């Protein structure tokens, strides 16, 4: 597709970009700057005071409690990202090459499950996993002791909920990028004597990398900010960063603290993404040097 060269004086370009730029500037860029400024203020009697000091930041950096929660959030997010990425690969591959006749129907089923209100689905999990829920009731009926599966209200339940709500993202991005792979390349590798596994490992997987990475990034970012699953399924016993931030805004009405913690979480997320980017770049260069 040829692209049309446009100058910023062009009416069509202005019409298509300026409203969007205005909106993003006013309600995305300015709020981010505001948040940074707010973290240098203080509170007194639940009211914001414009003090312009670094008290909140010294508080954030001196309290180990906050960093424990940040660390837990980061490890949960990384485990969730790993699970979602790895699980998506066979599923996406099977949808394209084993069940291609049904792939439209399967996709629709997945999209439907995905777009159903996450709060309701999370509540559904609670009803399923509860001590007197569907799973335990059914197990008891076939001879297991009562409440055999006691997973609800633990970090494991939180993880089930996170993987449940985020897995569709990696399945869709992985499947999209696998669908673009020329099937002849795989067949050529097979003709040249590669086993199925080897052809998959050396042809399909490297070519599907962009989609796998995109899904991983998306899931990582989203999993940093969860508070629905830890609250509803985890029972609030081991809160994650989003819950901490929510509390500092709502319960403690300490806006500067909330702003500072928000920035810490954003920086942690950005740092991990940057590291992943460097790693991917380095790997790609090494691969091309071979």
């Amino acid at each position, binding site marked *: *597709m040829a692209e049309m*060269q*446009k100058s910023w004086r*062009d009416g*069509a*370009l202005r019409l*298509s*970009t300026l409203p*969007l*730029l205005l*909106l*993003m500037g006013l*309600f*995305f*860029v300015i*709020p981010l700057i*505001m948040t940074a400024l*707010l973290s240098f203020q203080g509170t007194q009697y639940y009211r914001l005071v414009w003090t312009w000091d670094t008290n909140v930041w010294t508080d954030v950096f001196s309290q180990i409690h906050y960093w424990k929660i940040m660390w837990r959030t980061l490890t949960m997010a990384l485990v969730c990202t790993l699970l979602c990425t790895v*699980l998506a690969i066979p*599923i996406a*591959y*099977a*949808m394209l090459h084993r*069940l291609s006749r049904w792939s*439209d129907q399967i996709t629709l*089923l997945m*999209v*439907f*499950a*995905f*777009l*159903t*209100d996450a709060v*309701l*689905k999370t*509540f*559904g*999990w*609670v*009803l399923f996993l509860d001590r*007197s*829920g*569907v799973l335990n*009731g059914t197990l008891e009926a076939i001879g297991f002791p009562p409440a055999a599966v006691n997973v609800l209200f633990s970090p494991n339940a939180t993880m089930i909920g996170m993987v449940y709500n985020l897995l569709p993202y990696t*399945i869709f991005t992985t499947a999209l990028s696998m669908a673009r792979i020329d099937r002849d390349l795989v067949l050529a590798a097979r003709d040249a004597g590669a*086993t*199925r*596994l080897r052809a998959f490992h050396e042809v399909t997987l490297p070519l599907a990398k962009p989609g796998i990475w995109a899904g991983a990034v998306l899931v990582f*970012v*989203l999993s*940093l*900010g969860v508070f629905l699953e830890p609250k*509803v399924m985890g029972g609030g016993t081991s809160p994650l960063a*989003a819950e901490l*931030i*929510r509390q500092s*805004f709502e319960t403690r009405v300490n*806006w500067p603290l909330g*702003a500072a913690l928000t920035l810490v979480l954003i920086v942690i997320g950005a740092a991990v*993404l940057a590291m992943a980017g460097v790693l991917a770049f380095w790997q790609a260069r090494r691969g091309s040097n071979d």
Partner: protein
Amino acid sequence: MTDQMEKRLADIVLYGSVIAVLIFFYIPIATLILFSFTQSRFLSWPISEFSTRWYGELLADRDFWSSLGNSALLAVLATLFATLLGIGGAFAWSRYKFRFQWSFRILTFAPLLFPQLLLGVVMLLWFSVLAGWLNLSPGLWSAVIGHVIYITPFCIVIISVQMQGYDDTLDYAAEDAGATRWQILREITLPLILPGIFSAAIFAFLLSWGNFYITYSLSGSTRTLPTFVFSGIAVGSSPIYPALATLTFLPALVLIFAVGRLRKRAARRRLSKVAEG
């Protein structure tokens, strides 16, 4: 390992993974549908007596109707704005070439790289300041802006993908034939990217309809269905929510099949174009 065995093993893993994931995806949905027909006030298994009692209770609940109305209004407004901005953004992303295009792309994509709750919190801070100046309080209007910021990048991507297959010679032919730019846009470009616009609009609607985190932070005391459900289950499970879930599945199902049909039609049109060309 022989080739035959390898194929067997691969088949088991591949078919198994799809079946397992479909079961996994539908566990909570099926659970909710089952419990919506219970007679008891307590949502425990096995269900001893079935009834449609909780559907009646739900329909008599005034908070349910007001949050349903808010959800619909919010989703319609967010869809309208996000789709319009998304059309413009998609042109700028993939049909034009201009200075600072990369900065534009990064800026308009960036909201997707933020955890939703943080996006909401950061905007809430700004809205509270604005509200103080303008003597407003956060409510539906701020939730609409938050949804538009979050959903527009999705619309840009979906419409851009549709534009990938666009044939520019059509525009040039129309220009040669004396059409104005507005006529070209209205008569040629828009009809051709219409399937993409429809998919984007439907996707935007569903994203807004089901959104929890941004609404939760930005809507003030206004409640939409997700925040209504959250506030209910946070204080203890109430038997009306499974019924609510089952009722809301129906429109989503209709919309999703509509998208499927539209996409298939677009694919057929592309195929027939290739056949003619």
